């Protein structure tokens, strides 16, 4: 299992240009091949054994599904029946059931989703040169209630469509992505109902998560799904561009009928497989999940791995089969990190799908126990010449999408209402996973020659723009596509604000607090308030930042989270002044003990600061809070004798003056340990006293490099 990790590590060690050229030549001659993997049997149950799965609360099971679905691969259509057994776990009585009919978002130009997307999603577009219209929809054909006095029906396709149902009426909402089914009688607290729906799903051409591309079929958001009933009522959001999903946990039994040549991957475990009449019939069971997705493609190549009884199955496109060990290594690293930090992964399988290049829009998406990743950037021979390497493409996607098994798969927050709880907290956890994997506090994820980029550095760069338009704690629709603020705010800023808090309160303390959150809210629907409450409870309302004996400066945790989550305030500190000035002398007239004026020495002569002795001057540092985010910050001051001191400032006022009588200041640095991941513009954080002529650290090396390129260009090689 760890062979993959070792090989990956080897390929990523840099031995300088000569070795790089050799490596490039070897890579260039290497033909693609499918790496061998040991057979790993399908687990017998969808959940891991009780001792490995962690706590699975029985009352979290709300909605069970039995689905029977047939794929017409030529028409890219699924016809099926879904039987939903739903328990009312609230104190409300309801007279309707609310359904998500997500696929209808792709039905026409004027759905809420399409209106916001204007035909595009992460660079993919629905418009296509072939003749097929490419729209997707889910059409309900019949809805009936089964007799809920009788015990729940046994599972199995043959058992579907039980006798004597009551036909129910239904209607699409204002947007077709929501549908309301009227119940024939109200449903009270703790009641349960079983409804059966016949549906036809037309898949769209893949451009946003789901659909087909040639023979490849990605089935996400493909069946009518019951919404979540909360104490306040149904939470059935209209499917919009950034609004992802929200659902209750339950068990799924899914019967699939696909063309015989299809290789299928799905949530859960495969429990049955039969081939007859050119069709393949499969049955999958998934337990305690809140969605079920599957994928079918005749071209898939399979690669298997295993970690502590979890079967890791990759379905790859043949041209990328060679990357399987690297994805496996990343998957295992993610499992190790996430289990240690956030508790056991409860399911027995994880399926990693590699989508074909025509279906890029389906890549990088998470579903329970199944996710799609992205391709590792193909290494070009010249990459070695310039020392280019990265572990952002493909590998990072694998870590990110697996992370969602926790941040939304287990901690099933409402992705539409608070997308930061899954995308943002997940991005934060991905940073930790990479730290754990590389055993480095600042892991390098990209290189070019002797230049490196760490997770932290890239994160700060992406936050330079568009993070001050919409607060982090906003609903998905509150990030209009036109602001381009969704990614940098929801993903990056959330990660940065958590990272900053972690640095301020101390890593062990923060990690323990987050662990409590993860354990407490497993298989639940935590909200932002739940996370904040857990953090406050575990961290306490204040964190002392100063050392014993220093003027006390504390971080007000609630205030910090308030500003970071609910405002668009920016963090930016600047050194307004770093200088030395002449100290006040005793020259002039003073009264002695008898009241007589004595002294009368002339004022000190104008002397340049550089010439004054240390005891004749005082060092002055003025730090300014240029951003409107109020946050304590640490300062490091270096004196001309080489001594270094640190001071905290509470950051409340607009500026603060520090004075050191009798000491000559050489340099000051704000946030010397780079604790504030929220501060993206850090170029104004270090300043030297003016009498110490200092190179700015960037103009000379960059100027030299440009001059070097110019000398190469002027080589006289031919024109």
């Amino acid at each position, binding site marked *: 299992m760890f062979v993959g990790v070792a090989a990956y590590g080897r390929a990523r060690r840099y031995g*300088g*240009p000569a070795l790089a050229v050799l490596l490039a*030549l070897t890579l*260039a001659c290497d033909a693609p091949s499918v790496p061998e993997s040991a057979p790993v049997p399908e687990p017998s149950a969808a959940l891991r054994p009780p001792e490995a799965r962690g706590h699975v609360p029985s009352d979290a099971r709300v909605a069970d599904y039995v689905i029977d679905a047939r794929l017409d691969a030529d028409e890219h259509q699924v016809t099926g029946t879904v039987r939903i057994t739903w328990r009312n776990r609230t104190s409300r009585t309801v007279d309707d059931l609310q359904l998500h009919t997500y696929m209808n978002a792709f039905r026409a130009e004027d759905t809420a989703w399409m209106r916001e997307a204007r035909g595009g999603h992460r660079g993919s577009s629905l418009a296509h040169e072939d003749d097929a219209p490419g729209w997707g929809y889910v059409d309900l054909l019949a809805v009936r209630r089964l007799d809920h006095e009788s015990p729940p029906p046994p599972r199995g396709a043959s058992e579907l469509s039980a006798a004597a149902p009551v036909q129910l009426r239904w209607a699409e909402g204002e947007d077709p992505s929501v549908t309301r089914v009227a119940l024939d009688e109200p449903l009270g607290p703790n009641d349960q109902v079983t409804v059966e729906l016949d549906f036809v799903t037309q898949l769209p051409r893949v451009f946003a998560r789901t659909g087909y591309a040639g023979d490849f079929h990605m089935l996400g958001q493909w069946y009518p799904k019951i919404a979540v009933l909360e104490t306040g009522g149904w939470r059935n959001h209209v499917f919009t561009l950034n609004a992802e999903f929200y659902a209750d946990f339950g068990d799924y039994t899914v019967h699939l009928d696909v063309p015989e040549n299809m290789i299928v991957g799905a949530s859960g475990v495969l429990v049955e497989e039969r081939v007859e009449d050119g069709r393949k019939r499969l049955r999958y069971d998934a337990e305690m999940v809140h969605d079920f997705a599957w994928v079918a493609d005749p071209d898939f190549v399979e690669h298997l791995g295993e970690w502590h009884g979890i079967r890791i199955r990759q379905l790859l496109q043949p041209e990328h089969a060679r990357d399987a060990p690297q994805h496996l290594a990343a998957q295992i690293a993610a499992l190790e990190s996430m289990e240690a930090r956030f508790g056991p992964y409860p399911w027995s399988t994880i399926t990693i799908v590699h989508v074909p290049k025509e279906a890029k829009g389906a890549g990088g998406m998470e579903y329970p126990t199944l996710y799609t990743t992205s391709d590792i950037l193909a290494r*070009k*021979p*010249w990459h070695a*010449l*310039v*020392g280019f390497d990265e572990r952002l493409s493909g590998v990072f996607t694998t870590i990110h999408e697996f992370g969602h098994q926790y941040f939304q798969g287990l901690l099933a927050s409402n992705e539409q209402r608070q997308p930061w709880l899954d995308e943002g907290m997940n991005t934060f956890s991905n940073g930790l996973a990479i730290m754990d994997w590389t055993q480095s506090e600042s892991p390098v994820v990209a290189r*070019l*020659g*002797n*230049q*490196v*980029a760490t997770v932290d*550095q890239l994160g*700060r*760069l992406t936050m*330079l*723009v568009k993070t001050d338009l919409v607060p982090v704690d906003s609903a998905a629709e509150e990030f209009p596509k036109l602001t381009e603020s969704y990614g940098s705010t929801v993903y990056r800023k959330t990660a940065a604000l958590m990272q900053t808090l972690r640095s301020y309160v101390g890593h062990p303390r923060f990690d323990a607090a987050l662990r409590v959150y993860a354990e407490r809210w497993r298989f639940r629907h935590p909200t932002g308030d739940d996370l904040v409450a857990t953090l406050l409870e575990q961290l306490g309302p204040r964190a002392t930042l100063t050392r014993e004996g220093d003027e006390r400066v504390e971080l007000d945790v609630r205030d910090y989270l308030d500003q970071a989550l609910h405002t668009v305030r920016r963090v930016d500190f600047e*050194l307004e002044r770093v200088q030395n000035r002449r100290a006040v002398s005793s020259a002039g007239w003073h009264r002695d003990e008898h009241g007589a004026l004595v002294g009368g020495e002339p004022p000190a002569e104008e002397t340049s600061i550089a010439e004054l002795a240390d005891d004749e001057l005082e060092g002055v540092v003025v730090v300014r809070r240029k951003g409107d985010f109020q946050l304590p910050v640490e300062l490091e001051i270096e004196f001309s004798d080489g001594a270094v001191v640190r001071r905290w400032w509470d950051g409340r006022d607009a500026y603060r003056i520090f004075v050191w009588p009798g000491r000559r200041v050489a*340099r000051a*640095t704000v946030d010397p340990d780079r604790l504030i991941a929220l501060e*993206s*513009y*850090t*170029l*104004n*954080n*270090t*300043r*030297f006293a*003016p009498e110490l002529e*200092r*190179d*700015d*650290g*960037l*103009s*000379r*090396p*960059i*100027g*030299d*490099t*440009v*001059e*070097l*390129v*110019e*000398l*190469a*260009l*002027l*080589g*006289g*090689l*031919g*024109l």
Partner: protein
Amino acid sequence: MTALRRVLGAPGLWLTIAALKLALAFVLVRPARAVLEASLAPFTITSGRSALLIELTRIIARHEAIAAALVTSLILTAILGVLLWLLVAGAVITRLAARRSLDETLGASLRYLPKIALVTVYSLIPRALVVFNLVVDPLGMENFWARLIVFWLGWTWCTLALDRARAGVVLRGASALDPRPLVGAFLEVVTRRRGLAAAGVMLLGGLTMVATLELGVWYLGAPWVVWAARLLAIVSVGLALWRIAFAVEAALDEGARAPGS
């Protein structure tokens, strides 16, 4: 006289061109560097040598003019580089052919400039094809290294032929308007052993350029690296002169063989 001896016999020529090149690079980078300094002042970056590109990106995100200044500097250099070698070509060929006074050498630069420019324009056609093959790969040579080798061979061939045609224009009074001498030069450089030697020197020149860039990539920020690049720039001028000296020898040989010369 051998080609190398011709170059070593003209140290003034070598050093003058090298000095021009160093001065050009030095001057052309100053405005961009000044913009960078002004944008950063009065602060200092202390994040270390391995984060220079990250810091550059950060400051460009705030001050986009820096990117414009850097790109302008590079484009200007590329253009002036071509003009520099066009301008000195007449002088180089004249001086490598025989010891001449400063006046004569400088005069040759200007006198032959239009003709040399014209031959150069002709030579752009095969060069375009060579570049096209590298970038677009119409022949479907999937292996990058094979394509790079083909590019280099093609580029070398074009360069040697151009050197030879220019030498013909300067030393033999060949017509610049008539493309046939250039076509002849293409044939000549692949049929004479001298062509092979010149190609070898050209390869050394190419490697010098690659070495310069590689130093920049792997030792970005090291204080000595610009000095190493300057040293390599002086070497590369010598190599370019050596290469041209082969064309000069060929033109002089042709003169010696031709009846009535």
